[in-house]
């Protein structure tokens, strides 16, 4: 019965020992639930072997001017296109400011290697693979929902919000690149 009396005593001061126990137990419970749920969610993220996918090197020598090749990198296609002077001019003559995703052609290629365009071949709308040398701008055309990209891989018409992404890559020499 002494505990009973104590409780009534503390009730007058506001906080009871029981309140503290409720909050502490509840707090620990929430943390424990979070700790239990997180592994269940995080297991869905890319696993170590998927993340470890290495970079690739590509030999550019066999690609003629006006030709493009498609290589697979991290499960996605990468287009490497050796552009003609006319294609470069077409990309550079259009005012950058008028593009939905404003980016100049110079920003999308490596300085001194203007004829080489390297883009990830995944439409920025919903992830289909655009077809090269198609569409209103002779760049890429996505058959899924009709996005047109120009000879710099920039979105010009259709539902895609962004330009085709340029992957991280470096020139090892004039005819060899390393992607990733």
């Amino acid at each position: 019965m002494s505990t009973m009396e104590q409780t009534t005593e503390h009730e007058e001061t506001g906080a009871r020992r029981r309140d503290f126990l409720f909050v502490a137990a509840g707090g620990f419970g929430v943390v424990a639930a979070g700790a239990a749920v997180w592994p269940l969610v995080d297991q869905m993220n890319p696993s170590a072997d998927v993340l470890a996918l290495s970079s690739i090197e590509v030999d550019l020598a066999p690609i003629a001017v006006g030709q493009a090749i498609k290589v697979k990198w991290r499960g996605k296609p990468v287009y490497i296109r050796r552009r003609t002077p006319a294609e470069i001019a077409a990309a550079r003559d259009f005012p950058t400011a008028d593009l939905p995703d404003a980016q100049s052609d110079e920003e999308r290629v490596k300085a001194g290697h203007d004829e080489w365009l390297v883009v990830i071949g995944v439409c920025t709308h919903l992830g289909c693979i655009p077809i090269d040398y198609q569409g209103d701008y002779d760049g890429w055309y996505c058959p899924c929902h009709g996005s047109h990209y120009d000879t710099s891989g920039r979105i010009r018409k259709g539902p895609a919000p962004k330009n085709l992404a340029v992957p991280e890559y470096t020139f090892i020499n004039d005819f060899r690149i390393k992607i990733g």
Partner: protein
Amino acid sequence: MTAPSRPFEPKNGFVKWFDQQLPIFTLLHGALVAYPTPKNLNYWWSFGFLAGILLFVQIITGVVLAMHYTPHALMAFDSVEHIMRDVNYGWLLRYVHSNGAAFFFIVVYIHMFRGLYYGSYKGPREVLWMLGLVIFLLMMATAFMGYVLPWGQMSFWAATVITNLFGAIPLVGDAIVSLLWGGFAVDNPTLNRFFSLHYVLPFVIFGVVILHIWALHIPGSNNPLGIDVKGPQDQVDFHPYHVVKDTFMTSVMAIIFFAFVFYAPNYMGHPDNYIPADPMVTPAHIVPDWYFLPFYAILRSVPDVTIFGFTLIEAKLAGIMAMAASLLLLFALPWLDRSPVRSGTFRPIFKLLFWVLVVDVVILGIVGAKVPDDIAITIGEGGISWLIVGQLTTIYYFGFFLVALPLLAKFEKTKPLPESISEAILSRNAKA
């Protein structure tokens, strides 16, 4: 729960003994035998029962197919062909499962339109309606993931397009897409988790179906007149009346269903799904399974949302929001339509707009299967593109729910309701 018309009085000694300790026979008797139903239910009320039958068929055939299927990116396609060619009756089981999914959607769409026409979503059945929508959403998720499993070209690219939808969510979109894929693209980890979820979700659906039936049996069924049951004179028992009626409808459905299974098993599929998945090539024209086409059409119809030339929401995100809204607004239906009259029979304008909606949804389905820039209706040199048709039908879809229903509730002049169900039947018989 609606009181059963007659109490359960078991004759069998075992049943009596068991039921005293666990009254499961009493429960089943109350739900399937003595459950009182309005006596004027028409054949449209059988579609809930048919949906239940199809869920059962899908679970049984699915469990069996999983005994032969291999959820691996390199082996999935071949294992499906193995089922088709080598496994005893594998072709039958797979065709029943794939056509069963299509029929499940047909039956559920009719079930939903019936609920819409007769105002079955109105009080006291709002929870019943919303549980049905939960089942519908779970079905869509399950069917989508099931479509991915054969790992054909359509499987792969449907998975790519649908998972990419989540990428449009601001800030966290890319992280969510990567989480769904388990990689940088749709690949083996994606297939594995889809198989896991495709197997478990039907059992979740089964659980919600139990809740759906429970929520039905509290107020009891709505009826074509949409008026409340006044007493036992308005009702008949579920058994034998609806057991017979629903069994008849099951037979009718089975005839049509097996006509597809045996004579046109791939009619509702897509030939490209017999090409193994290739992550490097997108098919020239990709479409989701036909039962998603109306929603797919809404997704593609929405352009950039701009104010004074400034893009507020990009088309990609706006389309997804519209598609999500087209489904989620159904949860608000009981509160959008406040008309005190349930049945469309007594609401002349609602009735007209309802049938226009049915046609509208069918047109949306056709639009979903077309290339947006192609010409739908030729006028002189040019014409109206499918995109425009899709936009008009999308506007009607939203207009029906968000504008017409609230306005009709206020201004529509409804026809007089009959006194009671039995009175309506008797006066009709007297006229005849």
